[in-house]
Structure formats: structure tokens, C-alpha cells
């Protein structure tokens, strides 16, 4: 898994690539909570993400709840393939604000 950051509009955009599983999901969790702790709106970019398991999804859920409590925006961008299937299987596709592409932001 690789994580990089850019700024896009009002968001801190987190570019995820590779595979997120129990081995590395804690890094995602710490990164997300760190951004939210700094009061940033977060855009999680799934465009280059090949795989995410339930531990990665749990990190997103926890972060989404923190964002809501702090009235910060938290969106997922460009989920397709296996990561989208995981969100559908867990019914979280209707919980997270999902954006198909950056033009819709």
C-alpha cells in the first residue's frame, strides 16, 4: 500500500494505491485520524486502489464518524472493482458519501 497527499479544493486528498489489509490498515487509520485531528476535510481517493479488506473499511468507518462529530467533510472518490464490491457487501456504499470523479465535487 502507498499513501500520498495532495490538496484539492477544500480537501486534503489521500491517494491510496496497492492493497490494504490487516498488515497495513493501521497506517491508513493513523493517517486519516491525523488529518481529521488537524481539522482537515478529507477526500479518500480509491482510483488506484486494488484491494481493501474489512480492517481498512473499519478504519474508514471510524474516521467517517470522527469527521461527522467534528462537522468535517469525508468523501470517497473513484471506487471501482474489488474495493467497490467490499463497500457493497458491507452495505456501506449507502453510508459513505461517494463521488465517481473529481468533476462531481
Amino acid at each position, binding site marked *: 500500500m502507498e499513501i500520498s497527499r495532495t490538496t484539492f479544493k477544500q480537501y486534503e486528498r489521500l491517494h491510496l494505491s496497492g492493497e490494504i489489509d490487516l498488515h497495513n490498515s493501521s497506517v491508513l487509520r493513523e493517517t486519516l485520524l491525523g488529518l481529521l485531528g488537524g481539522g482537515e476535510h478529507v477526500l479518500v481517493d480509491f482510483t488506484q486502489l486494488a484491494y481493501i*479488506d*474489512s480492517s481498512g473499511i473499519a478504519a474508514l468507518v471510524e474516521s467517517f464518524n470522527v469527521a461527522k462529530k467534528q462537522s468535517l467533510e469525508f468523501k470517497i472518490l473513484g471506487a471501482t472493482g474489488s474495493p467497490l464490491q467490499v463497500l457493497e457487501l458491507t452495505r456501506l456504499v449507502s453510508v459513505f458519501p461517494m463521488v465517481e470523479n473529481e468533476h462531481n465535487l
Partner: protein
Amino acid sequence: MKLIKNIECDSCTSKLCSIRADVREACLEFGFPDPDINSIVLAVDEACANVIRYGYKYCDNGSVKLQIFAADGEAVFHIIDQCPEICEADITAKPVVDEQPGGLGLHIIHQVMDRVHLIEGDASGNTLEMRKQLPLKEA
């Protein structure tokens, strides 16, 4: 049952990636379509991750064995560990509550697989069996 793959590795989270690759390869041999392969790989990964996380409590000197069989029109996955014995209640899917991060792995396993249960044996540890119907072959 015909054994397709027999994999054994340490109970280390860094091994999950290669387990997924082996499951994907077996699923391709079985002829599952891509969306099914993605979900089966995920379900087996979740089961192995649960063994490492809850069974071995992240101790990486345990053993995780994955056996994949073809049997009576089904793909059969056995995940064998040497952890303290668990019961069916431990592998029952709990209702997923929106916006709660817990219980997602078991929910996924039960959503994807046709049958999930424990096999009783004489040996110590646990054997989780997951079954998925093979795709029908076109005439």
C-alpha cells in the same frame, strides 16, 4: 474431494498477500467470473486475518494452513489453525450496524460463501470449512 492447493504459512499479517494470490489462482482454475473471484479472495482473506487477529492475537509463530478442494460442484476452502478451540457461535455473522466498524469480516464471509461451518476433528486447533458453488459450465 480433489485437493487443488495446500498452503501453510506463519500467522503473520505479511503473508496475507500471498494467500490472496494463491486463492485468486485457484479461483481462475475453477472458472469463476471476476466479480466472484474478488469476493471469494476477500472472504478467504478475512477468515485468515481473523485467525491471526483473534486466534493467535497477532503472535506470528503460529501456523495457518489453507487447503482448497474441488468437490461435488463446489469449491471448498479449509482454514486450519492451532488456536484455542472455537465454536459455531464464534463464526456466526452478527448484524452489521451502519456506521459501526466491528463485525464486518464475518459478515463478508457469510455474504460471499454458500456454507460456513467448523469441522470437528481429533487434532488440536480449528478447521473452518467454507463452500462456494462452482460456476455452471456452458454446454
